[in-house]
């Protein structure tokens, strides 16, 4: 099924693609210079229109980090007047300010095309019925897929997250053929189907699912495919780069094509910050070259991956990224939610009843991933049983508000957790990537 949404662009020769990238990069650098952030940064680093003369000069521009986004909150990265922006997405704050991404009308059009291109690539057509189980609101997996699927012409159901029985009812009643779903939830969905006597092969029209937003192994993909009787395709996106659609697997299921008419790809060693050798694992660094409201130059994604060498049999010329292999920071990806241990710490440290030592354990229970937080009590010990239970409940509630998932809290005796030395290792990841 080698057909394309935008044949010319998807199969452009490398030479032409790189020429296009250079054209777009030049425009992007010029546009970025109109934002308060890059204006200052260019001045500090002596970057002028003339100093970047080719794609190869890109490395002369300093990296942009998530901290830069936080520090310029809310509008310091805007390269066009707010009047010309039509959408704002924001991700939750962890150590301080949240991050903001602005979109112009053209940015949204381009993004919809980008997602449509991905979905068309895995076989979605205007005759399909697509159900999106992403959260909507600020989470870009919601609107990102919604607009992409509508652009493609599929009948699109914004089911949003949760209520598994209702999801299954929609899938059956609306003859849904394609889902966007996080892998751990796909396994859960299949489990509930079988529990309630629904055979996905017999009782549904499901054929394709797009899975992403959390790490998963090849075995997990195969298992989901087997359980649901579908083909599952890995998708990659991040809100800083619009959201879904940045890179997507083709039907070869061997690496994710990263759309190089949208971004310039670099893979660096997170320690030395120099490019890794071709095909080696490193941190993905992306430069937007098709976004006007908020260009990002050399953005450090913190995601670890490598470029797959060689041509893809599907005929697309855009580079392929391997399955993501973790992070170069301590971000935890859990049930599709991105979170940092410091968010948990900030909340725990507000309770006088708690000590300074705590440990997060991520584990797989049945088909679902759970977070256990063990936290030591401080000296202020009460012998009132109900006070301790209320304490555990209150900690759970506050963490749930912050993390958008519900951890299990276990109060433990002082001194019972391993003593942390230096930069504490607070996270034990025992999840099975099944």
């Amino acid at each position, binding site marked *: 099924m080698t057909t394309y949404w935008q044949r010319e662009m998807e199969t452009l020769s490398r030479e032409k693609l790189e020429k296009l990238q250079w054209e777009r990069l030049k425009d992007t650098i010029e546009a970025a210079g109109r934002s308060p952030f890059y204006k200052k940064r260019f001045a500090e680093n002596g970057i002028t229109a003339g100093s970047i003369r080719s794609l190869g000069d890109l490395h002369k521009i300093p990296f942009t980090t998530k901290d830069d986004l936080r520090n310029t909150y809310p509008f310091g990265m805007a390269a066009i007047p707010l009047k010309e922006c039509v959408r704002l997405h924001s991700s939750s704050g962890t150590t301080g300010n949240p991050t903001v991404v602005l979109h112009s009308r053209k940015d949204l059009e381009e993004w919809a095309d980008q997602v449509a291109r991905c979905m068309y690539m895995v076989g979605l057509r205007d005759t399909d019925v697509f159900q999106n189980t992403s959260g909507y609101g600020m989470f870009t997996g919601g609107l990102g897929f919604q607009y992409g699927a509508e652009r493609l012409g599929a009948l699109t159901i914004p089911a949003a997250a949760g209520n598994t029985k209702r999801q299954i009812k929609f899938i059956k009643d609306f003859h849904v053929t394609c889902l966007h779903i996080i892998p751990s939830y796909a396994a859960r969905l299949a489990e509930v189907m079988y529990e309630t006597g629904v055979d996905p092969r017999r009782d549904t029209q499901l054929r394709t699912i797009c899975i992403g937003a959390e790490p998963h192994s090849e075995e997990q993909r195969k298992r989901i495919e087997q359980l649901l009787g579908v083909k599952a395709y890995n998708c990659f996106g991040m809100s800083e780069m619009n959201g879904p659609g940045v890179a997507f697997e083709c039907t070869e299921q061997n690496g994710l094509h990263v759309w190089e008419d949208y971004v310039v790809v670099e893979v660096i060693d997170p320690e030395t910050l120099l490019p890794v050798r071709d095909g080696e694992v490193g941190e993905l660094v992306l430069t937007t070259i098709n976004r006007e409201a908020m260009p990002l130059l050399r953005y450090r994604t913190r995601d670890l991956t490598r470029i797959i060498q060689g041509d893809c049999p599907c005929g697309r010329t855009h580079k392929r990224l391997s399955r993501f292999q973790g992070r170069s920071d301590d971000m935890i990806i859990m049930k599709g939610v991105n979170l940092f241990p410091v968010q948990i710490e900030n909340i725990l440290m507000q309770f006088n009843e708690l000590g300074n030592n705590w440990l997060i354990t991520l584990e797989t229970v049945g088909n679902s991933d759970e977070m256990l937080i063990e936290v030591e009590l401080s000296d202020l*010990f009460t*012998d009132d*049983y109900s006070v301790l239970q209320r304490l555990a409940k209150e900690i759970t509630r506050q963490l749930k508000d912050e993390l958008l998932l519900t951890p299990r809290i276990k*109060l*433990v*005796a002082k*001194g019972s957790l391993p003593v942390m030395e230096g930069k504490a290792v607070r996270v034990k990841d025992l999840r099975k990537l099944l």
Partner: protein
Amino acid sequence: MTIHQLSVFLENKYGALCEILALLAEENIRIVAATIADTSEFGIMRIIVDDPQKAYTILKSNNVSANLTDVLAVVTAPPAGSFAQTLTHFTKAGLSIEYMYSFVAGGKAILILRTNNREAAREVIRRQNMEYLCESDLPALFTE
């Protein structure tokens, strides 16, 4: 009228209780009564010992989460129904029992209780002329 009870936080894990008891045994602390309240995640052990201050210091110096709580110690008479009668006095005074346990020592049946209003509970004990224990009575409980 009140004595010190030692409360100890216990993790729900193999051997946790033994570890705590061993610390007290090493220092010759004698235990006359113990009770454990537990959930699936943790427990609280409440004990009456001959020297609460010393026991508390031992646990603290070993980094054990523990505290001393004032509890009422009422002596109940041997005849049938005296336990019920004692509690009825508290109930009639509008008090609720938060927790309670009993033991026999030095030939006496002793009721340890904590109510939702300690002052009112003391008043009930005084008015009803109940026999009670003070901290200074503790060592006597351990003599045969």
